[in-house]
């Protein structure tokens, strides 16, 4: 009724923060098997070339879901 008395609503802040945090959580935890998958990829690739690290991310391009796998080589 008298908007100049109104406090800033912290519930709105909570909703905004939660929406972003949960979106990030869901992307990071899409596949529970991701750590096992990383370890296995390292094992396979290691037979041919030294591997330092594997990064896996789920991506979504125009409705097509894809796993993007980056293999960082161990340069020696």
């Amino acid at each position, binding site marked *: *009724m008298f908007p100049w008395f109104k406090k800033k609503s912290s519930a709105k802040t909570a909703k905004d923060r939660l929406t972003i945090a949960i979106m990030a959580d869901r992307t990071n935890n899409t596949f529970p098997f991701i750590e096992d998958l990383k370890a296995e990829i390292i094992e396979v690739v290691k037979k041919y070339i030294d591997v330092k690290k594997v990064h896996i991310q789920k991506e979504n391009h125009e409705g097509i879901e894809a796993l993007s796998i980056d293999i960082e080589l161990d340069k020696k």
Partner: protein
Amino acid sequence: MGIVIAVISGKGGVGKTTTTANIGLGIAQNGKSCVVVDFDIGQRNLDMLLGLENRVVYDMVHVMDENISIKQALIKSKMSPNLSFLAASQTKDKSVLDSAKINKLISSLKEDFDFVILDAPAGIESGYEHTIEFADRAIIVVNPEVSSIRDSDRAIGILDSKSQKVKNGEDVEKYLIINRINPQMVQSGEMLNSEDILEILSIPLLGKIPEDKAIIDASNQGKPIVLNESSSAGQAYKRVSARLCNEKVDFVDVETFNRGFMQKIKEIFT
């Protein structure tokens, strides 16, 4: 064949065990046979809330490991002849839990009861995973508060990847209970409202439970609040229990219904 419902939350202390006790008794009062099982191995709380702590002789692990029959371990509640309780083990490590044994236990409970309600431990560790493994449905309990809601989303994610039903290509039905709603705070914009929580988690609502001081009194006495028909939380749990028994019960707007006169005056000026 009974329905297995896991009561989960992710975060601890949001009212998971209180909810289990109340919907268990509520369902029993609705005329359905119901067993509540405490899956919080190593700790015990559900027996206290049901007033059964002095009657526990055998627990879940005795049944799974030591040839004690389920009948010997089940405790019948004096509050309703339809309600039974199976206690958690206090002494043994939770690594004793094993999928095959749990499956056997739950399958035989399903044969004897209309509802098998499992009180999950807090967190998302192995004890939690074992609780959801053979569940047909899950009730997610949250408080209108950021850490509870975020943690519940993680617990739901694990439910959706590790439950047996999901592995078989089926869905585990999920329902949300929003517990400890403070109507005044929701109205003044200091607490998340139910619509926002439902939008964030996107699972259907089973019930809204207002914050109620009578809950403490109820747990002090070991008499679930659903027995107290004059309390707002008791009435809310009664509605939830009826919904679980497939009755159509309208949702009550607990976020606005108990505005007092002074509150209304205050609202005009804010």
